[in-house]
């Protein structure tokens, strides 16, 4: 059984996907690594798929590791950061 995860897009991901989020399916007990795999299939551009490799997933309070369970129905994908 699968569940839907809404992934909020930021930074350079908005360039190839201006809709600001994507919905993907992962297994019910899926982990972040499963989400990463689902995102690779969902992203349309080669640049975005390349950016995915260097990107992290996060909730509103914490950055997740690939082995972490996906804790919520909505998470964010964070490309490499450069504030300031």
């Amino acid at each position, binding site marked *: 059984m699968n569940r839907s995860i809404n992934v909020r897009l930021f930074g350079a991901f*908005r360039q190839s996907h201006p809709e600001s989020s994507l919905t993907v399916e992962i297994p019910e007990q899926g982990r972040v690594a499963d989400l990463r795999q689902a995102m690779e299939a969902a992203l349309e551009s080669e640049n975005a798929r390349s950016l995915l*490799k*260097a*990107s992290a997933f996060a909730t*509103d309070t914490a*950055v997740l*590791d*690939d082995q972490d369970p996906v804790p919520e129905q909505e998470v964010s994908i964070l490309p*490499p950061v450069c504030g*300031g």
Partner: protein
Amino acid sequence: MIHVDITEAVLDPLAALSHCSSDAHGAADLFVGRVRNINDGRNVTAVSYDLHPQLCRSIFGEICAEAMEQWGQDLHVYLVHRLGRLAVGEASVITAVSSGHRDDSFKACRYLIEQMKVRAPIWKQEHYTDGDSEWIKGHALRNSG
């Protein structure tokens, strides 16, 4: 005492210094990051900042708490970042710290800006005089993989 925020409003250095003020503090440090008109040889006209608001506030708070743990729980600490499109010369970030003596303020203020740059979920898109725009490459937050 910690103050963190993200805002679309113009940043005010005096507000930072007002927060970083105490009769017991003989030192206050202020850092202002501004949009530069050139990067990697390209002429920049503006920078658009995108960020994750909730996570940004959370990480700003963590960084400030770490600074207080390292340089003193009595510090007054301030970290605010702009959101949206900024023209050359506009302030994008302000960090400030006050403390009893100057060494703690200098070190803690630098800690805030350096940690913010590599940990906070903020992205910038530069706009150039030739009409092109580009998202700037940054520091990966990915922990494993």
